[in-house]
Each structure stands twice: as C-alpha cells, then as structure tokens.
C-alpha cells in the first residue's frame, strides 16, 4: 500500500499557462501560499502559512528547487518540522488541456508504509482486537484522542480560508 501523496489534475489550459502559474512567486502566493520562490535550480525558499499541523506545526515549509525543465517538470525539496520530502510536478499535454501530476514522497517512506499496512489489516490481531477496542474507547470518550478542535483547528481554518468552489476539473 503506498504511503505517498499522488494527485493528478487536468486543467483546460495550455501547458505554458499552467507552468507559469507554478513557477511565478506572485501566482504561487495567490493559489498556494506566501513565498519567496524563484524559478532557479538550487534556490532556497520558504512557504509561510498559519501554523498548520499537516505542514509541520509552525506553518513554515523550507524548500529548494532541485529540478526545473520548462514546461514539463519541476522538483522541490519540501521540509516542515522534521519531515523531509520531495515534491515533483510533471505536466503533460492532454486532449482536454494539461494534465498535472503532483507527487510528494519520502515520509520516511517505509515507516509510513508500515503504518498503513498495520492499519489496513496486514496484521489481523490489530485489526481484529486492538483497533476496534481503541475505536470503541474513543467513541465512549475513554482514553479518547484530544477533541479535533485542539489539534486540527489551524488546519481546518487554513483549508477553509483557502477553499473555493471547484470548477470543471478532473481529478483521479
């Protein structure tokens, strides 16, 4: 079971236009996050958001441009907290416009894989006893995880603040 993030979107615009939106600091600050990005291999830059659990708590993501092959492929290193990952964008011409694939890999890969394997039933005892027991406890409030508000509020706020209605975009 894979532990990476792998998303493909198709936009009804030519690749040059999508590439421009991916490689302009100004554009990125509109659709992604405030940043000091420059389209130059080796450039170190940061994205800044409000503290957000999924970005590594302090909301600062430290990146470097590792590869740049206009208008086809761009690779960033992406570190937040002690998470050290790689983000790769690849663009491909499609009948409907441009297909953009975004992959984020390196969540101490094997560890994340083990997590998903255990939770997805690779270990029957966990699935059969422990997890249901834990979920039961959580449901009755005994030894429950902290209320979502305590740990996910920033994330939700951030997502909520940025989320807009979807247009006709294919996602698979």
């Amino acid at each position, binding site marked *: 079971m894979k532990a990476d993030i792998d998303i493909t979107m198709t936009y009804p615009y030519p690749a040059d236009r999508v590439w421009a939106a991916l490689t302009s600091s100004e554009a990125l600050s509109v659709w992604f996050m405030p940043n000091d990005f420059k389209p130059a291999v080796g450039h170190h830059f940061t994205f800044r958001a409000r503290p957000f659990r999924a970005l590594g*708590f302090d909301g600062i993501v430290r990146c470097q441009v590792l590869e740049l092959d206009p208008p086809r492929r761009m690779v960033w290193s992406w570190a937040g907290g*002690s998470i050290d990952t790689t983000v790769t964008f690849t663009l491909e011409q499609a009948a409907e416009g441009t297909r953009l694939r975004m992959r984020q890999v390196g969540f101490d890969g094997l*560890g*994340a894989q083990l997590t998903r394997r255990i939770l997805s039933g690779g270990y029957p*005892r966990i699935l059969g006893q422990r997890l249901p027991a834990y979920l039961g406890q959580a449901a009755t409030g005994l030894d429950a*995880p902290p209320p979502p508000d305590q740990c996910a509020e920033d994330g939700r706020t951030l997502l909520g603040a940025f989320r807009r209605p979807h247009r006709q975009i294919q996602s698979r």
Partner: protein
Amino acid sequence: MAATADRFAALADGSRRHLLEQLAAADRPVSELMSGLDISQAAVSQHLRILREAGLVAARKQGRHRYYQLRPAGLTELREWLDELEQFWHARLAALGDYLGEAP
C-alpha cells in the same frame, strides 16, 4: 500528544519498525522482542523508549514482566496527518484551477 514529526522520526529506523511489526502480532516482553534483532537488550530498550515517547507503543506490568504493546491511536493519528496533508494539496490544486480561470 507526540509531534507527528517525532513519530515519523521514530519510524525512520529499521530496528524500530521491526519491533512494531512484532508488537502488531502480539504484546511481548523485551526478552522476546530481542529475537530477530542483532542488538543488545539495552539497545532494544532504548528503541522501545523512543517508540513510547513517540506514542506508538505502550507498556504494562504483568507479574514480574513488563509487556510492550502497540498503540494503534499513534498510528491512526499519523495516517490522519497524511490524509490531512493530501486534502491540503487537493484544495490548493483546485485553487490553481480557479487561478488559471481568472488570470489574464
């Protein structure tokens, strides 16, 4: 709650992943956990301490032995964290679509 980063760091080590796999099968005392690992009991205990601090493992006393057990909540929280990050990307890539539609 342990930081997600600590959890990933705890999982980054092969010996600790091996310990987790053993504990996924059954609760075990340190003596049993040493099988399959070519390291000292002190080293195993040190790895278990890191796993406990990361919230991935818990310990309980039973008779003279201390049994270690997997803490599924720790793993669930890690998976939720990954899911949250994935949602974040989905939302941002949808916003890119909006931006492309609005940009001159």
